[in-house]
C-alpha cells in the first residue's frame, strides 16, 4: 500500500481551527494599533471562531463525500519527514475509523461553539454567564483544542499522535479552570470547583500519557528498519502502517522481555492504561464527574462528546492494531472491567442528586459498552463498539446541553429541587424526554443500535465467559431505564414547584444546537448504514489481524 501524499484536504481540515486561532492572535496583537474596543474584539473573536468551526465541519463533510468505503487502506495521506534524526514523519491519513471520529469531532465542536455564544435570554447580573468572560482567550483555547483532537484522530505516526494527544491537555486545563465554576468548599470538607477539577483532569491524563511515552519509546527501539517518506531507510520507525506490518511479522513478539514480563504484554498494558484513563475505565473514572460538574456547558459537551472517544480510538488504533495477541491475552480482564463500568456506573447514577453528575456517570456506563465490544473481539461487537462511540457522541452532547439549559435559568442542577417543570417548560420537557429515551437505548434511536450490536457480537464471542458478561451487563438496560425515568419523574412530572415560576422555555440558541442533534439521533437509529459501511472495512482488517 503506497503511502505517498495524495491530498491536502485532511491537513486543511486539521489545521483550519489553527488558522482561526492565529487570526484571533493577530487581532489581539493589532488591537492597540486599530484601537478596537473590548466589545469589538469579543465579537470578532466569536465570529472568527464560528467561521473556523463551520469551515472545519464543511471540510469534514467533503472528506466523507469522497471517502471510498470499499478499501480499508489510508486515504487523504499527507506525509513528509519531520525529524530525520528520529525517523519521525508528519503523517496524516484516515481510514473508516478515523474518519468517523473526525466528522464527529467537527460536528460536536460546531455544537460546542454555538453553545459558547452569549446566552440570548435575559441575563441576571449576579450570575455572570461564562460566555462573557475573557472571550478571545476562550476561543483561542477552544480552537487549539479542536486542532489537537483532529490531529489525534488523523495522525498515523506514533510520535505525532503523542504530541497531538498532549496538545489536547493544555487548553482543556485552562477551559475548565478559568471558565468553570468558582472553587468552593463542599459539605464533605473538600475544596472543589473549576481549578480543582482542572488540575485533577490534567494529573490523571498526564500520569496515563507518561506511561504511553515509555511504551512509545520501547516500541520505537523494538521496531525493525522501515522506509521513510523521502525514500531513505531508517533503523527504527514510528510509522503506524509499518509498525502494524512488523507486528504481524512477529517483530515485537520476538523482542526481549522487560523485567521478566514478555515485551508485548508489558507495552500493551502501558498503552492500555494511558488510554483507559481517558475512556474512563472503572478505577480511573473519578475525574469525570468532577470535570463535568465544574466545566461550563460547551466544554462538558466537547469533553463527553469527543474526548472520551480519543481513549477508545487509541485502544482500537494501537492496542488492537499492533498487539492483537495481547488483546486476546487480556480480553478476559477488559471484559470484566467493562461490565463493572456498565453495571456499577448505572447503579451509581441511581443515587446522584446533581443532574450533570448523573449524566457523567451514565457516560461511564455507556462507554463500558465500547470496552465490552473491544474485549469481545468479534467483528459485530467491534462494529457495535465503534457505532456506540458515534451514537454516544451525538446523544451525550444533547444531554449536557439540556443540563445547561436548566442551569442557565435556575443556576442549580439539584434534581430534587425541581418538580412539575412540564407545566412551565413543555418544549424543554419533550426534548429532554426524547434525549433520555435515546440514551437508555430505545430501539429506533442511536443508543439502541450500538448496544444491540455489542451485545450480539459479545454473545457470539469465542470465549464462553462473554455470554455471562453480556447477561450481567444486560441488567444495565433496566437500571438505566430506572434512573432516567426517576429523574424524569422528579424533575418534570408531579405537582409544579412554584419556586420556578420565573423559568422561561427554550430560546433559539438552544434550539439550533438541540434539534439538529435530535434529528441526527433518529437518523442514526433508523438508518445506521452510512456509519456502519464506513467503518466495516477497517474493522475487517483489524479483525483479520487477530
Amino acid at each position, binding site marked *: 500500500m503506497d503511502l505517498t501524499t495524495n491530498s491536502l484536504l485532511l491537513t486543511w481540515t486539521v489545521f483550519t481551527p489553527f488558522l482561526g486561532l492565529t487570526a484571533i492572535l493577530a487581532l489581539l496583537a493589532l488591537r492597540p494599533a486599530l484601537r478596537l474596543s473590548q466589545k469589538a474584539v469579543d465579537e470578532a473573536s466569536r465570529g472568527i471562531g464560528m467561521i473556523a468551526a463551520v469551515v472545519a465541519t464543511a471540510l469534514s463533510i467533503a472528506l466523507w463525500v469522497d471517502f471510498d468505503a470499499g478499501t480499508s487502506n489510508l486515504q487523504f495521506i499527507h506525509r513528509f519527514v519531520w525529524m*530525520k*534524526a528520529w525517523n519521525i514523519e508528519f503523517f496524516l491519513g484516515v481510514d473508516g475509523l478515523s474518519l468517523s471520529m473526525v466528522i464527529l469531532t467537527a460536528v460536536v465542536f460546531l455544537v460546542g461553539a454555538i453553545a459558547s455564544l452569549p446566552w440570548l435570554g435575559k441575563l441576571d447580573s449576579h450570575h455572570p454567564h461564562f460566555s462573557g468572560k475573557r472571550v478571545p482567550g476562550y476561543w483561542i483555547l477552544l480552537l487549539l483544542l479542536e486542532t489537537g483532537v483532529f490531529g489525534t484522530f488523523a495522525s498515523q505516526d506514533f510520535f505525532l499522535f503523542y504530541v497531538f494527544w498532549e496538545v489536547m491537555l493544555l487548553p482543556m486545563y485552562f477551559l475548565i479552570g478559568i471558565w468553570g465554576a468558582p472553587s468552593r468548599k463542599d459539605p464533605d470538607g473538600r475544596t472543589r470547583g473549576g481549578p480543582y477539577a482542572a488540575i485533577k483532569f*490534567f494529573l490523571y491524563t498526564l500520569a496515563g500519557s*507518561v506511561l504511553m511515552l*515509555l511504551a512509545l*519509546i520501547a516500541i520505537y527501539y523494538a521496531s525493525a528498519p522501515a522506509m521513510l517518506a523521502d525514500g531513505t531507510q531508517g533503523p527504527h520507525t514510528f510509522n503506524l502502517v509499518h509498525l502494524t506490518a512488523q507486528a504481524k511479522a512477529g517483530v515485537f513478539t520476538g523482542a526481549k522481555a*522487560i523485567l521478566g514480563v514478555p515485551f508485548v504484554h508489558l507495552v500493551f498494558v502501558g498503552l492500555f492504561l494511558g488510554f483507559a484513563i481517558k475512556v474512563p475505565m472503572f478505577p480511573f473514572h473519578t475525574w469525570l464527574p468532577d470535570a463535568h460538574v465544574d466545566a461550563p456547558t460547551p466544554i462538558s459537551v466537547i469533553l463527553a462528546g469527543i474526548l472520551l472517544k480519543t481513549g477508545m480510538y487509541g485502544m482500537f488504533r494501537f492496542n488492537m492494531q499492533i498487539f492483537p495477541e495481547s488483546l486476546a491475552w487480556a480480553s478476559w480482564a477488559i471484559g470484566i472491567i467493562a461490565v463493572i463500568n456498565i453495571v456499577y456506573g448505572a447503579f451509581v447514577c441511581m443515587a446522584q442528586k446533581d443532574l450533570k453528575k448523573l449524566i457523567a456517570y451514565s457516560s461511564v456506563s455507556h462507554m463500558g459498552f465500547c470496552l465490552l465490544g473491544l474485549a469481545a473481539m468479534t467483528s459485530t461487537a467491534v462494529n457495535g463498539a465503534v457505532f456506540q462511540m458515534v451514537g454516544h457522541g451525538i446523544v451525550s452532547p444533547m444531554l449536557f446541553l439540556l443540563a445547561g439549559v436548566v442551569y442557565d435559568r435556575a443556576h442549580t442542577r439539584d434534581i430534587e429541587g425541581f418538580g412539575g417543570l412540564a407545566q412551565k417548560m413543555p418544549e424543554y420537557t419533550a426534548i429532554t424526554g426524547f434525549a433520555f429515551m435515546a440514551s437508555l437505548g430505545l430501539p429506533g434511536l442511536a443508543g439502541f443500535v450500538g448496544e444491540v450490536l455489542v451485545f450480539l457480537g459479545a454473545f457470539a464471542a469465542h470465549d464462553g465467559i462473554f455470554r455471562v458478561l453480556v447477561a450481567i451487563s444486560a441488567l444495565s438496560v433496566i437500571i438505566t431505564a430506572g434512573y432516567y425515568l426517576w429523574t424524569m419523574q422528579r424533575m418534570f412530572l408531579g405537582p409544579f414547584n412554584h419556586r420556578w415560576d420565573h423559568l422561561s422555555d427554550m430560546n433559539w440558541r438552544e434550539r439550533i444546537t438541540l434539534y439538529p442533534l435530535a434529528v441526527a439521533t433518529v437518523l442514526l437509529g433508523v438508518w445506521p448504514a452510512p456509519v456502519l459501511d464506513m467503518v466495516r472495512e477497517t474493522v475487517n482488517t483489524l479483525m483479520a489481524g487477530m
Partner: protein
Amino acid sequence: MLSNLLAIGPELALTATVLLVLIADLLIGDRPARRASLATVAFAGLAAAAAAFALLPDGGPSAFDGMVSGDGLGRFFRGLFLVAAFFGVAFGALSDEIPARRFGEYTILLLSTTLGMCFLVSAQNLLMILLALELTSLPSYILAGFRRGDRRSSEAALKYVLYGAAASGLMLYGFSLLYGMAGTLDLAKVGPALNASAAGGSVAIRAGIAVAALLSLVGFGYKIAAVPFHQWAPDVYEGAPTPVTAFLSVGPKAAGVAALIRFVVVGFGASVATPPAGGLPWPMLLGILAMATMTLGNLAAIPQDNVKRLLAYSSIAHAGYLLMGVAVGTPEAIQAIALYMPIYLLMNLGAFLAVLAVRAKTGSETIAAYRGLGTRSPFLAVCLAIFLFSLTGVPPFAGFIGKFYLFAAVLKAGTPFFYIVALVGVLNSVVSLFYYARLVKALFLEASPTGAPVVAVPFATTFLLAVLAIPTLLMGIWWSPLASLAAKAAGIAE
C-alpha cells in the same frame, strides 16, 4: 605554541573583556547611562569571545600537552556558557538588586566565573579541574553575597563559601589519592592505570580506588547540587540576588555536569556498555544518585511558597534528570544531555526573568504576588506559563523534547535497573506538574487581589522574554539544528 593559544582563544578574549570592564568601571563616572555603557563593553567582549570560539579549529588538538582538551563536548559547553554570560549580564542590568554603582564589579565577577566554567569543561588534567572549579566557585561566593547590607545575602554567601570550601577540600584529598595510585595527573591516563591496578589488585586496592574516586565525586556533586550535596542550594538561591541565582542555576551547574561526564566517562571509561571501571559500578551508583536527586527535588518543591526557592528545588530535580543521562554514559545519553542543557537554560532563565520582573514591580517573591497576573500583564503571564509547562515536559514545548531524548537514551540502555530509573523519572515529571501548575493556577485561575497594580513590564524585559520564549516553543516542534549540534558534542565517544 601558537596553536595552544589559539585553542584557548575564547578564554583569552574573556580575560581581555574582564580587564576592559575593570578599566571602563573606573573611567565611566556616575552618569545615568552607566549600566548601559558597561553592559555594552561586556557584550562587545563576549562578541569577541564568540568570534574566537567560531575560529576554533574543529575537533581541535588539546592545548598545553593534554591539560585542556578541545574536543566536541568542551566546545559545545563553552559556546553555551558565552550565551549564559550574555543573559547573566543582561539580567544584572535589568534587576533592581544590583546598584548601578557596583554593576561593574558584578560584571567582572560574572565573566570570571564564566572563564572558570569554560576551563572546567575542557580540563583533562586533575590539577586543571581543581583550578577551574575554584575559579568558578570563588567569584560566585562573592556574587552570592552581593547585596552588602542585606543579612540574607551575606548569610547565603557564608553558607556557600563554607560548604564550597569543605567540598573542594575533600575533592583535593580525593585527587591526591587518585594521583597516588595512578601516578599521573592526566585524566586520560588515570582511568586505564586504575583499571589495571584494580583488575589485579586485592580488595584493599579496590577499596582505595573507591574512596579516591568517590571523594573526588563530592566536588562535582556539590557543584551540580546533587543529593546529598544539595543542601546549600535552596538557601543560597533564595538569599542571592535574582540575576545571580538565575546564572548559578544554569552556568556552574552545566559546567559541573560536563566535568562529571568527562571525569566519569572519559576518565574512567564507565558506561553501561563497558564493564565496571576501576571496580566501581558507576552506572548503578549514579543511577541511584539521580533517582534520589530527582525525587527529593520534586517532593521538596511542592510545599514551597517562595517562587525562587521553588525554582531552586526544580533545578535540583532537573540536575537529577541530567544525572540519569550521565549514569547511562552511552553516546546517545551524552547527546541527550547536550541537547537538554540549552533547552534547560532557556526555560530556567526565562522563569527567573519573570520572577525578576515581578519582584521589580511588586517587591515580593511569594506565589500570592502572582495571583491574577494573567489579567494584569498577559504577555508576562503567558511567557511564564510557557516556561513552566516546558519545565514539566509537556509537548509541544522544548522541555518535552529534552526529556524525550533523555528517556529514550535511558530506555535504550536496556538493563532492568534503568527501566526502573526511567519509570521513576517519568513519575517525577508527573509530580513536578503539582508545583508548576500551582504557579500557573495562581497566574490564570485565581482572581487578582483588588487594587493590585498592573505590572507594566519594561521593553527590555519583554524583548528578552520573547527571545527566551520563542525558541522554547519553536524547538518543541523543530529541534533538528540543536540535535545535530548536540550530536557533534557527543562526538567524543562516537
